[in-house]
């Protein structure tokens, strides 16, 4: 009934992107999101497309997985495209049929905006395809560390994230177990009138919540028994090591940004 999700859709391959420090990957995606707005003509988009294409190659991830990441968004991209196509009324009139009027600007904007979306989604997909959730958590914790000075609970957030990640498969298994138990008592989850299907959530959610509380309590007890007193004074087992390639990749993106500045109109 419930297939095993690849959490975060990480694909275990050995590639250059996989081996990068997750911090540099996060920074690259963040920077990319910023500079993508610099592109506003064919030349600049071409440069971006080449860059993204290079990233895809370096990730060694089969295109099938990238497509899976795009699929949920394809409708949104299509919608945006149509929005611009039919409602941007600038430039020469290209096509007319009844009250449908397509202008040059509309077509141009439609293509460019959709392309922007497209590239953004691919880049963020590459991030989750080449980085495990726990690596991302570590990266965030390290990057946000300076915020500790303003008493932002960085360690607590990172610990919350890693515990949540650890429990996702466990909770999914439990959901399946409870669903089966309630189905055996006559609950229909996937057929019948909508009203009933919504009511069916109750015998699923309440046990899940109750168990979740119990889990949380027991886990907190276990953590305290093992000496957990909060983030102060803890050492870290996992280590992030910044390598030369990480710097190279960031500089590469900066160069791309430079090219965009040169070629933009």
């Amino acid at each position, binding site marked *: 009934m419930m*297939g095993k999700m690849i959490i975060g859709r990480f694909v275990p391959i050995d590639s250059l992107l996989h081996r990068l420090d997750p911090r540099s990957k996060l920074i690259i995606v963040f920077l990319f999101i910023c500079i993508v707005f610099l592109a506003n003509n064919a030349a600049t988009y071409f440069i971006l497309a080449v860059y993204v294409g290079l990233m895809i190659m370096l990730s060694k991830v089969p295109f099938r997985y990238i497509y899976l990441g795009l699929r949920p968004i394809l409708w949104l991209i299509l919608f945006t495209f149509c929005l611009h196509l039919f409602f941007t009324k600038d430039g020469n009139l290209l096509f007319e049929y009844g009250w449908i009027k397509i202008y040059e600007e509309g077509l141009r904007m439609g293509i460019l905006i959709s392309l922007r979306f497209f590239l953004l989604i691919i880049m963020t997909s590459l991030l989750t395809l080449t980085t495990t959730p726990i690596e991302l958590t570590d990266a965030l914790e390290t990057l946000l560390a300076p915020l500790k000075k303003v008493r932002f609970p960085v360690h607590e957030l990172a610990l919350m994230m890693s515990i949540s990640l650890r429990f996702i498969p466990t909770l999914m298994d439990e959901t399946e177990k409870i669903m089966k138990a309630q189905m*055996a008592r006559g609950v229909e989850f996937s057929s019948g009138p909508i009203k009933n299907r919504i009511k069916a959530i109750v015998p699923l959610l309440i046990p899940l919540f109750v168990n979740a509380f119990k889990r949380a309590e027991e886990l907190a007890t276990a953590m305290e028994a093992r000496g957990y007193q909060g983030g102060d004074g803890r050492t870290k087992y996992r280590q992030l090591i910044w390598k030369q390639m990480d710097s190279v990749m960031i500089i590469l993106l900066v160069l791309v940004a430079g090219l965009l500045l040169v070629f933009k109109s």
Partner: protein
Amino acid sequence: MDISLQKVAYRYQENTPFETLAIKDVDINITSGSYTAIIGHTGSGKSTVLQHLNALLTPTSGNVVIGDRLIESGRKNKNLAPIRQKVGIVFQFPESQLFEETVEKDICFGPMNFGVSEEEAKHRAKKALREVGLSEEYLTKSPFDLSGGQMRRVAIAGVLAMEPEVLVLDEPTAGLDPRGRKEIMDMFYRLHKERNLTTILVTHSMEDAAIYADKIVIMNKGNVYKEGEPEAIFSNSEDLIEIGLNVPDIVRFQQKLETLLGYKLDRVHLNMETFIMEVSDHLKKKEDNQ
């Protein structure tokens, strides 16, 4: 009500990269009124088999016949509610299915889902509560205020109140203390006898299988490894040990004694009392002969 699995195979997540064949070529016949124990390691396929008994899972190949319903592979099987009512499953750690505000409401939940009137359901709830050894005063309590053992009994009552013809028990004593285990197993056996309730026990406990079951099915690596009556199954302990299972303590003890004696006793004993009787008879005969 009879249940039979005919050449059943089940694949999890068919047509995905995660496809796994959980059981294959499984033929199991459960006759009405019998008490069958299904034994096997974690991963042997016994929980997959269990879920076919009330059509929670439908086979990827082969058929399941539940009473007069035929569940075929490849067909969309509709209207499974009557099956779910007739074949009640008590899952492992059933207390995690409790959710209602009161014990009464939770026990009534199952029956009412199957069309039983509220009045009749409440009547059944009282009866079921008594059967699991809890007094009527528990009806108005919240299930979450009860101890673990009490919650388990309430959950069992919730299944009994559905008045199934077949009762499937998935490790019903998991996590209980010795007294709790004995009480629960004796209760199920009593219901089995009193109501001629076809009972299927999925368990790790050789002892329980030996004491309560009239037929044992052993699952190993997705196949039915062996089936038969307890005496026959346990007299062949090498076969069981080979797949990492055990035999009841008394059977093992008898074999150790037989090794020292150099001969076998008259029969394989599944409980201590009959074993002691035979040993005592043997010794008396020895004395008489001397």
